[in-house]
């Protein structure tokens, strides 16, 4: 084959690659260079700005006036007829709206904190409930970073209130507690965790009076700490709450084996509640064998197969918030 043909093809390839490089260079010149995840320790508007356009990924859904190109969620700057006020000033209006709706006093800080901690609490008309939980993976902002973002948003046309952000009223404090609890649990989303709990766990467990009674009441489970909850889900048989041991009863008449909790016991009968909720009442005369199985739990042992990493973190976050009457969940007024 002629070497000139090879040369021509090689030059052609260089031209194509040069065009490709030019496109990359032109686009980078227009849209900016590398995106580094900022690490912020100070609660300032500048710190919040770095989080907004960096680690927080806020810019992937929100524009800020003419900055950014996202349209999925409301523009947080002053933009057209729909958004005549930037978010700092807008938050003060919304705080009034929220106060009227809920009967609870909202400051603009409360409104902004709520928007980040529970984005579904108030939806701007025409937009969906699709904001990510920013304190859950993969964004995983910590409380300081969230406070910095609030400072940045307040500075957009509003009155910056750093003291109010650091020491807010009761409502915002409740949300701060929620964020802190979620962060402690690896940054799960407690809202999704609640849904997971209702779907997967509430047939057997009760929280705040709702749910089944086969397993222990979990209304105060958050007080026992993350490690205990995590172990209880992953290895339920390792530490069983007193009164919830697993019993095995074999009957004389039909040689059936009943496995479950011993929920009632009289001189003539034993009542076994199985994991399915089914209750078997067995006459003592009919019992051939009855013994406690210390190595087993009535709790399903295939939970790990049913949960993804995210689901697990979400459920943990939800359970971490269950601290009884005085716990975080009660404080949110849910």
């Amino acid at each position, binding site marked *: 084959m002629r070497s000139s043909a090879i040369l021509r093809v090689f030059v052609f*390839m260089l031209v194509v*690659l040069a065009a*490709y490089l030019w496109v990359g260079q032109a686009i980078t010149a227009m849209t*900016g260079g590398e995106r580094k995840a900022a690490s912020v320790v100070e609660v300032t508007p500048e710190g919040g700005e770095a989080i907004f356009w960096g680690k927080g*990924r806020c810019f992937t859904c929100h524009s800020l006036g*003419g900055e950014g*190109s996202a349209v999925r969620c409301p523009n947080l700057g002053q933009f057209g007829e729909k958004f005549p006020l930037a978010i700092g000033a807008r938050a003060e209006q919304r705080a009034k709206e929220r106060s009227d709706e809920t009967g609870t006093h909202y400051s603009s800080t409360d409104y902004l904190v709520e928007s980040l901690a529970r984005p579904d609490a108030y939806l701007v008309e025409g937009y969906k409930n699709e904001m990510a939980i920013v304190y859950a993976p993969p964004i995983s902002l910590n409380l300081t970073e969230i406070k910095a973002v609030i400072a940045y948003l307040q500075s957009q046309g509003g009155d910056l209130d750093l003291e109010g952000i650091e020491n807010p009223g009761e409502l915002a404090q409740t949300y701060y507690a929620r964020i802190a609890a979620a962060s402690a649990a690896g940054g799960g989303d407690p809202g999704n965790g609640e849904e997971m709990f209702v779907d997967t766990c509430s047939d057997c467990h009760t929280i705040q009076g709702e749910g089944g009674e086969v397993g222990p009441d979990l209304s105060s489970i958050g007080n026992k700490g993350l490690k205990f909850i995590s172990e209880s889900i992953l290895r339920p048989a390792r530490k069983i709450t007193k009164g919830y041991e697993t019993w095995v009863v074999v009957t004389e008449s039909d040689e059936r084996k009943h496995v479950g909790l011993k929920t009632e016991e009289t001189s003539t009968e034993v009542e076994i509640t199985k994991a399915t909720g089914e209750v078997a009442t067995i006459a003592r005369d009919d019992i051939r064998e009855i013994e406690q199985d210390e190595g087993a739990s009535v709790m399903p042992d295939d939970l790990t197969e049913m949960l*993804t990493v995210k689901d*697990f*973190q979400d459920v943990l976050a939800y359970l971490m918030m269950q601290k009884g009457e005085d716990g975080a969940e009660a404080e949110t007024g849910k």
Partner: protein
Amino acid sequence: MDREKSEAAIQVTNMQTENRSSRSNYWLVLGVLLTLFSPEVLALEANEYRQFLGIDSRRLVWFLAQMHLFFGAFVLGVPLFAVIVEIVGWRNRDPKLDKLAYEFTSLLSVAYATTAALGGLLAFALFTLYPTFMGYMAGLFKDIMFLYALLFFAETFFLYLYYYGWNWLQGGLEFSRNLQWLFKGLGVAIILAGAVFLFGGFGLEMRGDTRSFIALLYILPLGVGLLILRDLKSSHIFIGILLNIAGTAIMQLANSWAGFMMSPAGVDEEGELIGTLWQVFENILATPVAIHRMLGNLAFGGLVAGAYAAVKFIGARTPAERAHYDWMGYIANFVAICGLIPLPFAGYYLGREVYSTSAVMGNNMMGGDFSWTFIIQAMLVGSLFLISNYYLWSGMTRIPGSERYYKYIKFILGALIISFAIWLTPHNLPLTSQEVGDMGGSQYHPTLKFMGLMPAKNAVVNLIILSTFFSFLLYRRGNKSEVVPISQQGRLPKVVISLAGLVAVAIVGQYAMGMLSLDPAELDLPADRAHYFRTVGYLLIFECVMAVLAVILALKDRGKLAQGLYMTVTALSVVLFLGVYGFVVMEKASPFLRNIAVSQFLQLISCIILVTAIDLYLFRGAKELGKLQWGKMTVRSQYALLLLTFVITMNMGLMGFIRSGLRGDWHIFGVMRDTSPWSYTPSNYTMTEMVSLAVLVFMVGVAFMFWLGGIAAQKKAPPSVPGTEPGQLTDQAGSQPASRTGD
């Protein structure tokens, strides 16, 4: 970049010669040892990073991984291409196709060694520069990695047998009747088992996509391979099928690592295994990535083969050489288009699953750090289709009689350019205050802003594919005079066309039923939005009626009318109606928009299936207006073929950057953070720099291998295939390839 990282653990393979083989075994032993001594608990330790000679470790791994992936795609794509060509040649008793398949297999052997060496280098780089991360991955995936290594042995064995056994297994020596029946019985049993598996008879615990992947790419080909076993040549094809099954399995295993890094499953937030290895393996993105890569490899393999043919054509000294390489380029491009057409849909599915994994990751992909990278991607993919069409149109100049169809080209070109322009339109651009003022104070252009939204883009991508398909239909019938009545062609066409119609109705019909019964609450929509679903449901039912009508017309010898009617209805429905309706849905029932995209895809794919089935018989045995004049192509068209190869290679690099970059500052999304100094998303310029470098080195490497292959071919006699002497080639080539492979 993730597959690359994980693939490294044992990326080692076999080679053509003993020397190469021993070198690859060294890498294999290294990989296995590294895997053995990698405890899972490393996930819980602080990440450790190292550097080699002060080089940015991420860039080093990026480059090595990209090179390994390019060569890996080549050695997986080319056997696919070679076996398809060999099967077509065998079915049509065409020795030239057989020779072509052999020629490409011979190129494969050198690339195989390079892939393995690069894999070993990548493994070294990863284990030494990212010890904590790789230790964790190797600990978690050690069983799969061993399986991966064993599959390499299987692939090496099949490749040796396939390549060196070509001459030996050429003969027509038939097996005994009993043996043939045994193979047939086994084949039927495996196909039936595969069908039961595919439709959920067992293995229901698997994801649907994984089940389909295994059924369609492993079980079905294995069954078909056994079913056709009757002599030495079919045994050779069966070996080729086994070679591809082993290659595909290797790819799937490696993809599970890449998928795990994006969508981890079966582990807790600290990375400890809490589920099963199967859950870890079958994470959400493993199969979508594998499907996308499989089609990409097919297109890539075809186009690299096409580039080889183009370079040979440009440097050809005789008309016979030009004819041969022109024909080779045509076949390669044809195979590539077969992979390219469904690729956007596989990409859409992958994107959807990315959103399912994490909305944050999805938003970052389409609206965040990578939104502009996707604009570059749109330029590249649009170019691929535009250039493919150009190549087909150029090819029509060698077909006597195709002048009749030239008049359509300008319309197809118009449709492609408009579609391309819409596809490229960003929703908005960073603007100066002056520019904002000129546009009436809005950030968005009053008209063009609509072109930047998904409904418009979905509509035009379908139009691009439909236009390319139309170009191909014109090419196929270039030198055919009149249609041949299907009623006079026996029972087979009636069965095939009816079956194709049934498939089309089944594909569209099942989705129509889904739309008619969809509860708005499932999409978080109020009940009054149900009519948006119903409208689409009725439209799909209408499409089914049109499919039935097209089958009836075709069987009544009105095939052209059937094709025209069905394609027109599909174009109107997919592009015009759903394109506009998408905006309505976006405004009133936005979550339903993804269903619109799926319904567009299903209609289009059904249309392609049925129209192709009709076309297969419409001109079968039709009188030809002249022989194809292979070699009578412009040199410009060969540069188009080369450009296609460069573009697809650049696009592969770009897409790898997006997929890997989506994890942001996580090695394993949500589980293991990237705390290295390189934990940031590089700019698009950096991406183009890295990808360009990798493309340049890969292309030079491939050219060198082709040159080596050429030397070896000169020393060795080609397989004894009758009718392939250069003198004969020009005459014969003109008569057969298009009609046999294209038909």
